[in-house]
């Protein structure tokens, strides 16, 4: 893993990782010492993709799925849930933002706006 990569989105700006939880300030017990963080993805309807909705703590994948059901689908938000260990996610670093994303800013030709839309194909 490169020095710039993080194991969690936003880890550099206040995000939490399991290892952060065991090294909390001494003003409170490390309540989540053994419980890793999970990222939750919910598919709102058939045909749509799973979207990231938030995170939670759980001791294992089975309970993470149930906790996700209780926390994120109480109001019929979804028909399918994925849970992923937060530690398994490799995220881009805020430090790399310029190098990663700025070069795309002046390349308008990458947008599919230079084509004539054929008649009778309004939803192309």
């Amino acid at each position, binding site marked *: 893993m490169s020095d710039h990569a993080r194991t969690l989105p936003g880890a550099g700006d206040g995000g939490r990782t399991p290892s952060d939880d065991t090294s909390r300030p001494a003003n409170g017990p490390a309540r989540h010492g053994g*419980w890793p963080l999970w990222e939750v993805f919910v598919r709102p309807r058939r045909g749509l993709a799973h979207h990231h909705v938030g995170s939670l*703590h*759980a001791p294992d994948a089975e*309970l993470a799925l*149930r*906790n996700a059901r*209780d*926390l994120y689908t*109480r109001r019929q938000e979804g028909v399918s849930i994925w849970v992923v260990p937060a530690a398994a996610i490799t995220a881009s670093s805020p430090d790399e933002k310029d190098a990663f994303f700025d070069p795309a800013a002046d390349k308008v030709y990458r947008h599919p706006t230079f084509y004539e839309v054929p008649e009778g194909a309004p939803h192309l």
Partner: protein
Amino acid sequence: MDHLLALGDDALVAAQRLGEWVAAAPELEEDIALANIALDQLGAARMLLTYAGELEGAGRDEDALAYLRDDREFRNCLLVELPNGDFAVTMAKLLFLAAYQLPLYTALSGCADERLAAIAGKARKEVAYHLDHARLWTLRLGDGTAESHRRMQSAVDEIWPYTHELFQPDPTAPVDPAGLRAEFLAIVEPVLAEATLTRPADGWAPEGGRRGLHTEHLSYLLAEMQVLHRAHPGARW
């Protein structure tokens, strides 16, 4: 209507007990899970007590039945009124309650009383989830550390005697609970075995709840649950 009160009061008192965990559960996630389960039980209790009040025909609605009866008039089993104890005791109570309610509601969902069948059909799906939740925690605590195993076994031993009352015969009910114990054991015994817990021997079998003879714990629970309505009759949000 006594069989409806038994069902409704089981759900109501279980909901009140589970609600005590709100903001006090071991984890935020578990807090929400227990609150969800409590609200499922409360939802079933409301429908059952409303129906019981209508059958009685004395003008009592769900609130009158929930807030204005004394302990001797409650028909819930003793198991649900027992204090929450530690988390293991709460999970043992939930495991046994759900393993009783699941076959009961399943059988009731096919009974001749259409309204009761509809209530049971809805509650059955909710209770299947309650059972799942209690089962997963029982497995993890029973087959976890030495300390979690000790506390889970102690909880199962403590609560087991109170499961016998659930299956007291009631030939006048649409589904006689006496016939459900085999299904209850078929659910519970494999969970205990997989959790490396010893299934307690059958012996002492405290009962009386279905006749209104409760433990002292119910009075304290009712005092807290009913105080607002009794102090301010008809109070609404």
